[in-house]
């Protein structure tokens, strides 16, 4: 109340100055400050209580299973015996010699890369096209967001029908190439490419929104200065907007990579890991081992996903963060 009075009698700037002075004075007052801290020390226990439910949930259902998974990767542990014993790297070497570990890791990395490229290329192009908020762009934005809402399982079924040998895609191609009946999901190379594409298709609406937010947070005067300097549209995008989009790029890349390392749904709806094992990503292999009661090797494969995330995502975040520029 006194403050509003001060605002009336004094210029606004003066009132603000007065407040910041008071805050500085409070900071400088040593003894009073520490007394205040001691009092807040009493509050802390109660505040700890506020965090406890979330901490307990994360501890029991994320942290402990995660650590347990790391340990169990090095044990012989099956559904047929209650004895769990340490066997060192046996799980990994046997999975390696069975050709599961190396293959599943490679397939997972390729799947994640395809997904990431699809999402970022599509997301960035759409964001560039739909950057400004007007009525038509809003309609397109909400249209392109629809695939994000449906489950990856549903996305898988829709595309499995479109890509079926007797499906609409081949029907369309047959107009130009009579009798075309390529089995898109039945050939190893195209199957992996397409399941990655389907996952990218499902999420690119969200990636688009993140890029739109990133583009709109760029200071307009920087872009306008480039226009005055005669920079072309492509040059403006490459030299100004793209570098300034780095935070959005970091967010999208890391999240899509991490998400697609543990993908399963799209593949279960389309190829179930096939043809052969062409689309058997790590999580499909985890499920197969688990289904056979081989919990130890299942944990080892699951641990491999965690390793993949740690050796790619962490350096990636560090590297991308370093590239970020602010304006």
């Amino acid at each position: 109340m006194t403050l509003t009075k001060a605002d009336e009698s004094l210029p606004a700037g003066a009132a603000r100055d007065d407040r910041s002075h008071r805050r500085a004075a409070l900071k400088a007052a040593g003894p009073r400050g520490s007394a205040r801290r001691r009092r807040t020390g009493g509050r802390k226990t109660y505040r700890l209580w506020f965090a406890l439910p979330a901490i307990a949930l994360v501890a029991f259902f994320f942290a402990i299973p995660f650590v347990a998974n790391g340990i169990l990767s090095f044990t012989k542990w099956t559904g047929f015996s209650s004895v769990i014993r340490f066997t060192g790297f046996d799980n990994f070497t046997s999975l390696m010699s069975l050709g599961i570990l190396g293959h599943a890791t490679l397939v997972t990395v390729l799947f994640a890369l395809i997904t990431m490229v699809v999402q970022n290329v599509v997301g960035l192009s759409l964001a560039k096209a739909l950057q400004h908020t007007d009525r038509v762009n809003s309609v397109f934005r909400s249209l392109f967001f629809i695939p994000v809402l449906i489950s990856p399982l549903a996305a898988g079924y829709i595309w499995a029908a479109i890509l079926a040998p007797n499906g609409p895609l081949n029907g369309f191609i047959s107009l130009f190439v009579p009798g075309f009946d390529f089995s898109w999901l039945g050939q190893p190379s195209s199957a992996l490419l397409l399941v990655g594409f389907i996952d990218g298709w499902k999420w690119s609406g969200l990636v688009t929104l993140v890029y739109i937010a990133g583009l709109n947070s760029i200071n307009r005067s920087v872009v306008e200065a480039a226009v005055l300097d005669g920079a072309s549209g492509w040059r403006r995008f490459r030299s100004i907007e793209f570098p300034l989009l780095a935070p959005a790029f970091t967010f999208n890349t890391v999240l899509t990579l991490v998400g697609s390392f543990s993908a399963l749904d799209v593949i279960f709806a389309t190829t179930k890991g096939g043809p052969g094992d062409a689309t058997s990503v790590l999580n499909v292999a985890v499920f197969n081992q688990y289904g056979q009661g081989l919990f130890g090797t299942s944990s080892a494969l699951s641990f491999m996903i965690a390793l993949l995330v740690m050796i790619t995502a962490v350096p990636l975040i560090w590297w991308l963060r370093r590239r970020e520029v602010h304006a």
Partner: protein
Amino acid sequence: MSNITWVTGRPRLAGRVRYVVLAIVAIPWVVLPFWILLVNSFKTESEASTPSVWLPQHWAVLDNFGTVITQGQYFTGLRNSLLVAIPVVLGVLILGSMAAWTFARTSSRWLRGAYYVMALSIVLPPAIVPTVVLLTRAGLTGSELGYILALLGTRVGVIVFLTTGYIRALPIDFEEAAQIDGANRWQVYWHIILPLLRPILFTAAIMTVINVWNDFLFALYMIKGAANATLPLTLYNFANAGQYGVRWNLVFAHVILTSLPLLIAYIVLQKRILSGLTEGGVTG
């Protein structure tokens, strides 16, 4: 508008061309896949066995959707999905923002550590097999309760991470003023913190709803029996029930019914959802 044309330096015709190009992209990308989903869900089994973009020759709408509801256990799935999604979404929003308040205002090294573990839980993949074993030991496997707890534990981290950053940017003065006026901690949280968090929690809620409603991975491992199955699991079981390959008409009818609750919510709230996601804290 005039500003934009000045920056791009192009006449209005270019804008029209852009819309045409966008429409040409949007048709195969979004419109056709959903059109194919819709028309083939109206067809008879034999007609849908060759999925196409054409309208059905024989309409079998009631048959297909009726079969999904009776044999596909649609309403059981819907009830279970609601039974899971509502407590999980409310739970992560409330427990997450409560914890975030603590993390934002604390100087305790232990709590800092707990906060980093929560941030890690967003990026690191969940360890499902040990979680299932843990739930089995606790006698919680197969039912919704264990599934709900596992979802809470793996989804609360994002909310904590987003809201902690948000609260740190809020001035502490409101809380202190309320405390001096005699409000207890719960009242401060409920009447001061929670209302201030509304924008970020709305954004977080959208992402959590989409994520939890569509979860298949956890449900596959943690839910046993058709009576407990959530919608994605009923869809999966139903799609694999056909003896002679996939019955597209029925699978598509199930996909439509499974996605319908979120699609309806999206149609009603789309403006707020899209602006929440473009202006909200997703970019961090």
